[in-house]
């Protein structure tokens, strides 16, 4: 997990853009897709997203490794919509209570494509945005309080350690005779105890880290930034790209007559 999130060596174009412009572009696209369940706007956006993958240094294999739960969820969502949605048009499959018609299939595919088109930009964003750069941008450009932003950033580093700590505490407790196997109640009890142990360790670590940060002068008034968060021409292109993608998706869907506002029903 930690290794996969490590972006060092990602020299892709989008990795050099400012995180805020990437966020804005992703927000635009997902906002438009959230408005309508139709397969045209979703597939247009999806097609654009696949074109962008190389620019974010993402390959299909990497995408599957990082985003498989989202992809599976979209597929399952599409499948259940197509068999459960009200039928219209010719019936394609009829197995007792489950029927799939042309209308419900179209809705299901629209649902699945939309799920993917909304989820993939998040995977894309994660894979080309370093948390440190994001923090710099949030504090310097979005003017969020630096105490909060840097505190969160430093704490996130401890989350990776917690995973290791969890495993160690689990073993240490087994060595004391606390079984993590057995029936559901026993397992739940063991997990609660282990969580408590982890909590204690997390608090200790966090307070030591806080001392370290304070001893390095953190928490005072004015501070400077070793890394300047900047906007460049690339960020204008990123924003423009977001607008074009969102716009094309809407125009294509409206002109093909599939635009289907969520709250208007079908």
């Amino acid at each position, binding site marked *: 997990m930690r290794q996969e999130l490590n972006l060092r060596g990602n020299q892709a174009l989008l990795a050099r853009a400012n995180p805020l412009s990437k966020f804005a572009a992703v927000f635009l696209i997902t906002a438009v897709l959230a408005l309508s369940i139709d397969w045209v706007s979703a597939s247009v956006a999806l097609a654009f997203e696949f074109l962008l993958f190389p620019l974010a240094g993402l390959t299909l294999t990497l995408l599957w490794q990082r985003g498989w739960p989202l992809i599976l969820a979209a597929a399952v969502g599409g499948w259940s919509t197509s068999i459960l949605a009200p039928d219209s048009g010719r019936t394609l499959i009829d197995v007792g209570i489950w029927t799939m018609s042309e209308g419900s299939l179209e809705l299901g595919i629209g649902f699945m494509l939309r799920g993917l088109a909304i989820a993939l930009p998040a995977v894309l964003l994660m894979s080309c945005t370093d948390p*440190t750069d994001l923090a710099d941008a949030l504090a310097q450009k979005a003017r969020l309080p630096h105490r909060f932003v840097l505190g969160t950033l430093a704490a996130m580093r401890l989350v990776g350690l917690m995973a290791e700590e969890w495993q160690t505490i689990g073993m*240490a407790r*087994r060595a004391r*005779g606390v079984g993590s196997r057995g029936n559901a109640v026993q397992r739940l009890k063991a997990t609660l105890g282990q969580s408590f142990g982890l909590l204690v360790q997390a608090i200790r*670590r966090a307070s*030591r*880290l806080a*001392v370290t940060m304070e*001893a390095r002068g953190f928490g005072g008034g004015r501070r400077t930034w*070793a890394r300047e968060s900047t906007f460049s021409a690339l960020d204008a292109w990123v924003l423009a790209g977001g607008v074009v993608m969102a716009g094309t998706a809407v125009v294509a869907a409206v002109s093909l007559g599939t635009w289907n506002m969520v709250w208007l029903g079908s």
Partner: protein
Amino acid sequence: MGAPSRHEASVAVRPAAVTARGWGWRHAGRAKPAVRGLDLEIRPGERVLLLGPSGAGKSTLLHALAGVLGDMDDDGGDAGESDETGSLLVDGAVPREQRGRAGLMQQDPETQVVLSRVGDDVAFGAENLAVPRDAIWARVHEALDDVGLSRLPRDHPTSALSGGQKQRLALAGILAMRPGLILLDEPTANLDPAGVLEVRDAVGRCVDKTGATLVVVEHRVSVWKDLVDRIVVLQPGSATEDAVLLDGPPDQVLADARTMLAAAGVWVPGYVPGTRARSGNPAAGSGGLLLAAENLAVSRERPRRSGFRKVPPVPVQHDISAQVRAGQALAITGPNGAGKSTFALTLAGLLEPVAGKVSATLDLSRGAGIDPYKWKAEQLIERIGTVFQEPEHQFVTGKVLDELLFGPRHLGHGEERVDELLERLRLTHLVDANPYTLSGGEKRRLSVATVLAAHPRVLVLDEPTFGQDANTWAELASFLSELLDSGTAVVSVTHDAEFTAALGGTELRMAAAEPVAP
């Protein structure tokens, strides 16, 4: 602002002076003060080694000098008010009001790193002191160079550093603030011998170069003796006695008070505390076989899921074979990262082998099956007991006595042994205390006692002597030698050659793990 001059990048710092006058500090929620009546004068540029038994308030003093005492106690508790008496000044002013004048390094390397990239982490302190950007990077490069990490790229991930490298990185972060006072709180307690020297030498170079005042707290005098020019021995302060017990040049203090320091548990150079000798020949193969590892490959990681596929972990070490015999000591040694602990945990039935197998003989398993990893927790603890490096990981109750009774109660027998263990490991006066509030040595003794309360035939210990003072060390070694004589097998993962020698037995030396191509 202006461009940074070359001069700014290499100027020596103005060393700080420390003055304590009747200074005392009581932590919030504690009845007794941690420090009481401290009178101490440290001149600018002096290098001081602070010694003293645990509870003498060494860490408290360092935290106070760093200006971080009070709002962030290590226990996180804030019950009631803390209490300060007398005065403690750095350059004639209160430390809290002089950000960046002092830099503090603590024990746990993981919490000395703030950010995830090497360059950013070093820059962090300088940023907080509002140093102009160009000057920061000049300082970062110089600091990384001074601690010997200049070969690392600036965006190198800090998570990929060893413990010794993390501590050197922390030192670089401190140097980049250009402090006049460098405070080190047991900076090498969690490191292997190579890491200890790495950090000690980096500190020496940096103090030589900057001329900053240095205050180090450490148990291991031999490591720091030649680097400091003064040793101050603290004692738990009382109403009648001075907090400073001894003060003077290293050789003089060590000559005058060698015996007394050794008695107080300080590791004075050239002194190995006496321990109980093993009876008979400890290397003799008389003991029956209890546990065997055959061609074992070990890893802490579980099989990874990549999409639908299950990928087995890359073992940190493979083809290890070893035998554990009753009444025999087995020491597992080797450099950090060689997979010693991982091997020991696999041997102890806590990790699943990646390849090869661990088998218990009938003598040990007594009907529980051949593979210790498959045993139930209750079956495991009366056969193989494991003492972890960090005692707190194993505490499961809120009281010392309950902690000891926990194993026997689960097993339904053995409660009568608890009193004897309490007595033997000097914990009787602490039965009602909360395990988390004990001192380092007490925690170690308790963690050994709790595991032994279940009466295992095999005892596995992970770095049992790390960070321990000489007294706890000697007690532990003597106690284990008794256990060995009574037929228990003792497996210890250790860097400590004297400890290995004290227990005798065989040594399994593991080579540094080779990077395996995935």
